[in-house]
């Protein structure tokens, strides 16, 4: 399938959903602004109430293992080296060498130039390699550079591409521009022949979008353009993932499925460091989107330090005593 067709397909589908003959910025703008508003106070209150759910004993054990299996174990530093990435991959496949029943994480998430290293290190383990592309984290580069960046990662063997949207374009109302970029990056995720395409995660950088109305609109825009996943943040901007923001994105994927029949995944990233916080997110997944989303296929955590906290809680559940940081490995 030629890459041109994929973009055309996305546009055609969008026209169909919007019920317009031509996909213009005005059409997109009218559609996005026609989405129901989000009342900030009410949304925060709902998330806070869900946050009071008390997850104990068997439920907690299930939630901890599920959360571990949903982690995109991440290193995104200028100081990253092949050595650092390899050791991260070791941790990803065997999070807890003392407890081999611990599930592996879903993926490792690295910069583009580390994809080949990671690919080799996790070969045959079932752990995916995700790459942050499109001039991550700011996204301030030409589309040509962003597409080259993406193809580079795809060719190096990335299973998943985490792209950033152009927040400047979004905030200035150039929705069609954002749409087209996503559609084109998606087409750059294609592979020839039988090789599976890279999954596309679209990072909204909700900390820069600020309002919940914007988060809802950006979620719908990304799904319309063909996102497999919508992701909160790069982790480089504060605030990153918060419970209400994740909740609003989960409402979006829930409503998108009601509209189109398609499921889209959600990935909160950045700022989720404790087991408690991760479990709260799972509660929100369960009660807002529904239990179908409670698998690594449809929900991920972008995190690094979260994993060890989950392991400590896992020890506590198993032994009844609080564990300590000396009893989990650092990689």
């Amino acid at each position: 399938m030629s890459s041109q067709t994929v973009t055309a397909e996305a546009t055609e589908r969008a026209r169909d959903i919007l019920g317009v003959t031509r996909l213009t910025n005005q059409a997109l703008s009218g559609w996005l602004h026609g989405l129901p508003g989000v009342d900030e106070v009410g949304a925060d209150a709902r998330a806070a109430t869900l946050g009071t759910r008390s997850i104990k004993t068997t439920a907690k054990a299930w939630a901890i293992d599920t959360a571990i299996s949903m982690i995109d174990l991440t290193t995104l530093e200028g100081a990253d080296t092949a050595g650092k990435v390899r050791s991260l991959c070791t941790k990803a496949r065997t999070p807890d060498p003392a407890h081999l029943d611990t599930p592996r994480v879903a993926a490792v998430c690295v910069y583009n130039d580390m994809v080949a290293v990671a690919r080799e290190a996790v070969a045959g383990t079932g752990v995916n390699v995700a790459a942050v592309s499109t001039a991550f984290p700011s996204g301030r580069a030409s589309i040509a550079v962003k597409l080259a960046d993406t193809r580079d990662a795809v060719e190096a063997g990335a299973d998943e591409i985490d792209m950033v949207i152009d927040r400047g374009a979004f905030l200035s109302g150039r929705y069609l521009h954002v749409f087209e970029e996503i559609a084109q990056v998606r087409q750059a995720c294609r592979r020839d022949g039988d090789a599976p395409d890279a999954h596309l995660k679209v990072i909204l950088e909700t900390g820069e979008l600020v309002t919940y109305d914007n988060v809802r609109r950006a979620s719908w825009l990304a799904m319309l353009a063909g996102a497999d996943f919508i992701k909160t943040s790069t982790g480089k901007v504060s605030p990153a993932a918060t419970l209400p923001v994740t909740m609003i994105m989960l409402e979006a994927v829930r409503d998108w499925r009601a509209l189109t029949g398609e499921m889209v995944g959600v990935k909160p990233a950045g700022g989720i460091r404790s087991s408690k916080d991760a479990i709260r997110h799972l509660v929100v997944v369960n009660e807002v989107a529904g239990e179908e989303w409670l698998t690594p296929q449809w929900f991920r955590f972008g995190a690094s330090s979260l994993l060890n906290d989950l392991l400590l809680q896992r020890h506590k559940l198993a032994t009844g005593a609080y564990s300590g940081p000396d009893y989990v490995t650092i990689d």
Partner: protein
Amino acid sequence: MPTFEYAPAPESRSVVDLASSYGLFIDGEFRDSDGGSVFKSISPATEEVLAEVTEASAADVDRAVAAARRAYERTWSRLSGTDRGKYLFRIARILQERSREFAVLESLDNGKPIRESRDVDVPMAAAWFFYHAGWADKLEFASLGENPRPHGVVGQVIPWNFPLLMLAWKIAPALATGNTVVLKPAETTPLTALLFAEVCQQAELPPGVVNIVTGAGATGQAIVEHGGVDKVAFTGSTAVGKQIARSIAGTRTKATLELGGKAANIVFDDAPVDQAVEGIVNGIFFNQGHVCCAGSRLLVQESVAEEVEERLKRRLATLRVGDPLDKNTDVGAINSRAQLDRITELVEVGEAEGATRWSPECELPANGFWFRPTVFTGVSQTHRIAQEEIFGPVLSVLTFRTPQEAVAKANNTPYGLSAGIWTDKGSRILWMADQLRAGVVWANTFNKFDPTSPFGGYKESGYGREGGRHGLGAYVRTGADG
């Protein structure tokens, strides 16, 4: 079997130390009744007997009123506002310190979910004392009129839906303004009031300033009709409220009445729909719908009615009904057999009248009093379920086409306690608020309460306000008042 099954997370009962029987709290001590009988307070979730409680006789009420009068004349009215305030601050702090104990006991005795007693009832009761403590020495700033001063002895009768919170709503302003109190908790929920009596002792509140007499309707009547009572404050049914209004007619006794409601929760087509759905759920299923200001009539704009109903039903499927002490319970037990019967009867009427009944699937415990969250669609104003207060987890859904029609339907009731409006358009909120004949109007929220914010009804929902400056006014005489 759900993918993510929440394991039971029961709050421990061990924090509560119940006696097997309780006397009456009169003049600072627990005392035996003079000729009264006893009754049992049970847990509505299990029907287990929690304690035996005294049904106060008329003679007991006499003693309590006399103790309150003595305390008023000899100590309380002579204290400075600063010192009265300090006692109230102490009470507020003790409620905070013993919050878990109160929350567990409230859930046991009332059947409400521990999440609500823990996060709403008890902290707000403490806040009520804290707020009014600050007024005690500032009454001259409250613009209540010239020379604000207490009435004397106040008789207070409160309902079973928010036992401790309603006690706080009543006692805090009465004490802050210098009155003394004889209070009767509801017969099905007396236990937190009796625990509150212990708080008064811990705070070293002078004896007789607060007297708690337990009992049923007759005891309540003895209080409100007592000649030694200068002011009556009642929260409960409109029927009893009317009786009280009649019984004090022609006397100089003042009254505040906070009665029933049949609130409209009005959802426009531009509402923030996810939050509106939460507001609808909170409006009618909070506290099992045992809320006088509950949003029991949902008025939804026809253009979005189907969508809202769909979203509402999906949301209701996630409600967790069951053990009030489980920290994940959203909807607890119906407070009493009698109330369950009343709800059941009205729901049957709704079906017979042709409205469509729907409830989510949920298992109910074998013992105790339970009712599934219930939604009636296709309801008209003419249906009894749109007119009568059900006081349970039962929502009637009606539709409207224009703002005028919404207002007309919302106001088409003898009640007028509260209303809700859901729209993203600010000017419409304020226009609607002007038109609605209700004492509290919530916009894009529902069932919000605060000690600083006056609460009370229009029309047959009662008169007088509780909370804020206005609530204070109900407990003082001013100028040339006798």
